[in-house]
């Protein structure tokens, strides 16, 4: 099936009224969780994962994808108006976006964020449509050693890019793999680390772990501080940017889009790092870098385009290789699996309706988002005024309901509470949850491919270095692991971490 025919077929799926409804629900909830600080796309997607079971696979996955790219749009509203990132990828938008708002230019800041996001989102869908079939053809040649090395590379990139100590990030990745391997051994059906508990034989569920580490831990962290929201009180005014604003933003949007898309494809990369990289590039390229931090529209246009393009790019490794490049895609993989589907090189030929349906729904979803974000800003501002002391009990209840509904087991609620406490302590002690969750999802695949590779090679590790793709992945991974030992690179990495924390 060629691209045009595939896309035509995809639009037939996307315009099915029920899929349009799911797409709308997805982008609406995505925008809402993007707007609300304290609940991100990961929590929202875990919460709604069980709901996807009631519909067709394409409906459920269209909704989940909508939540992801919708949250990227919504995050900018909170960043501009309240100076709190609605989700992690909007951290950079706070810097200049909120400054613009304080100077009475909230409208153009929100407008350019929405327009840039739309351009970047659309570009990334077109690129996804063109790149994915090519990569899928290459991916057919992948064997266990290539998959193993690619996953090692993904975990290394994520550990390299996390804030703070790389030793802690790698430790978290190793812990994630261990938790992911609890349950029956896939090869000889031996129970492992189950402590004779029947509930653990099938392994630990993704939803309780993610809800605990992200949802509950976030709430525990927030309620020990007094949350103050400094909502911009002045009138937002016209959202449409002026001619000068559009002229100043064209370059940053274009550069942010391409950069975001490329970083989004990389396993372990993604929306957060692409928005930081875009901001740094725009500041460096600017003739007046001193304006950055004081309300430069380029500081909003570039990062917002980058994080939306990255959200689209992240679909490529999942759809073509079956490897989730970040936590959100890991949840999407979970959605595929519960519907009995396995994303990978054969996805396009075996399930064209799903692949092309998702791609086409993303076009539709992007237009819905533009419509939702431009005229409904006033409504989102009202949502932002809801006090956290009322929101957090409700979010907590939704977490419990989501976890229970996913497996109908109180045991999962206890897993969520335990991982929630663990996640809270991890934040206190400076350990990041993202490498743990990605490793948790990749763990079983990682072990399976390692063991298969060793069986194929009759017990030698040569198999990982004689195959070029595997060798390249391992060399890059090794370079990333060694890099922090070099003083110059360590300083650079620490600076990125500091910038991110600020």
């Amino acid at each position, binding site marked *: 099936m060629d691209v045009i025919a595939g896309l035509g077929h995809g639009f037939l799926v996307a315009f099915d009224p029920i899929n349009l409804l799911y797409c709308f629900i997805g982008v609406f909830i995505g925008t809402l969780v993007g707007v609300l600080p304290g609940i991100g796309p990961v929590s929202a997607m875990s919460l709604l994962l069980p709901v996807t079971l009631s519909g067709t696979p394409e409906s459920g996955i269209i909704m989940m994808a909508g939540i992801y790219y919708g949250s990227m749009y919504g995050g900018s509203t909170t960043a501009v108006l309240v100076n709190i990132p609605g989700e992690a990828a909007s951290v950079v938008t706070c810097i200049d976006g909120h400054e613009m708002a304080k100077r009475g230019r909230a409208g153009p800041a929100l407008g350019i964020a929405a327009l840039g996001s739309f351009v970047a989102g659309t570009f990334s869908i077109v690129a996804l449509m063109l790149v994915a079939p090519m990569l899928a053809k290459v991916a057919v040649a992948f064997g266990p050693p290539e998959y193993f090395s690619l996953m090692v590379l993904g975990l290394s990139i994520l550990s390299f890019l996390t804030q703070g100590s790389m030793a802690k990030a790698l430790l978290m990745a190793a812990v994630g793999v261990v938790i992911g391997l609890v349950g029956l051994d896939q090869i000889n059906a031996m129970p492992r680390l189950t402590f004779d508990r029947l509930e653990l034989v099938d392994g630990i569920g993704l939803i309780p772990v993610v809800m605990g580490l992200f949802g509950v831990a976030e709430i525990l962290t927030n309620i020990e501080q007094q949350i103050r929201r400094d909502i911009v009180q002045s009138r937002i005014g016209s959202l449409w940017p002026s001619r000068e604003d559009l002229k100043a933003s064209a370059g940053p949007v274009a550069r942010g889009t391409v950069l975001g898309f490329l970083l989004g494809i990389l396993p372990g990369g993604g929306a957060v790092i692409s928005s930081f990289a875009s901001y740094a590039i725009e500041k460096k390229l600017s003739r007046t870098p001193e304006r950055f931090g004081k309300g430069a529209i380029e500081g909003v246009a570039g990062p917002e385009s980058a994080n939306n393009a990255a959200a689209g790019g992240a679909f490529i490794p999942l759809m073509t290789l079956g490897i989730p490049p970040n936590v959100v895609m890991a949840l999407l993989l979970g959605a595929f699996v519960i519907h009995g589907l396995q994303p990978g090189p054969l996805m396009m030929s075996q399930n064209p309706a799903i692949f092309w349906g998702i791609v086409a729904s993303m076009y539709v979803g992007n237009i819905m988002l533009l419509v939702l974000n431009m005229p409904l800003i006033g409504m989102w501002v009202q949502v932002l005024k809801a006090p956290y002391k009322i929101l957090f*009990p409700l979010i907590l209840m939704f977490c419990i309901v989501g976890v229970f509904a996913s497996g109908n087991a109180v045991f999962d609620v206890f897993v969520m509470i335990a991982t929630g406490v663990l996640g809270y302590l991890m934040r206190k002690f400076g350990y990041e949850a993202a490498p743990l969750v990605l490793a948790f999802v990749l763990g079983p695949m990682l072990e399976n491919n390692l063991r298969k590779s060793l069986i194929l090679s009759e017990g030698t590790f040569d198999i990982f270095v004689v195959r070029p793709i595997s060798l390249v992945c391992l060399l890059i991974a090794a370079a990333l692991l060694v890099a922090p030992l070099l003083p110059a690179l360590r300083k650079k990495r620490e600076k990125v971490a500091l910038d991110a924390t600020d």
Partner: protein
Amino acid sequence: MMLRRAEFWGGLFWLGVGAFVAWQGWLLELGTLREPGSGFMFFWLGLIIAAFAISIAIGGLRGEGPLLADLWRGARWRNVLLVVLALIAFGFLFERLGFVICSLALLLFLMTVVDPVRPSISIPVSLIAAVGVWYVLEKMLLVQLPKGTWIEDFIPF
């Protein structure tokens, strides 16, 4: 002084976890490189965790990172404790008292004791949320929620 560093205690905790995982891997049998056993990954991952944990703990001994007490300085840690205890109680009572009563109690507790809001807000919000979620899940999405083994004989619906 060095023993009061958060890095030291964090490293020590993960060292314990790593040692336990490696030991479990050893018990599960390592197999050979030609045919790795069920414990192969666990054993090596346990050693990796232990190695990183030692490096972090050594950093703590060298005086790196904040003091353990500083992590909670000025924080409202009582709130965290109350929420965790409420969640554990919820977990134990969920199947016995059922979804509606447990959720209502949890929401009222959080909005009255942990971070208080006016009763004129907390009571209607808790009621609408608990009953509304129950109605949507149980009646519309047909998700089965616990009715409560202690009280199901008294429920008319």
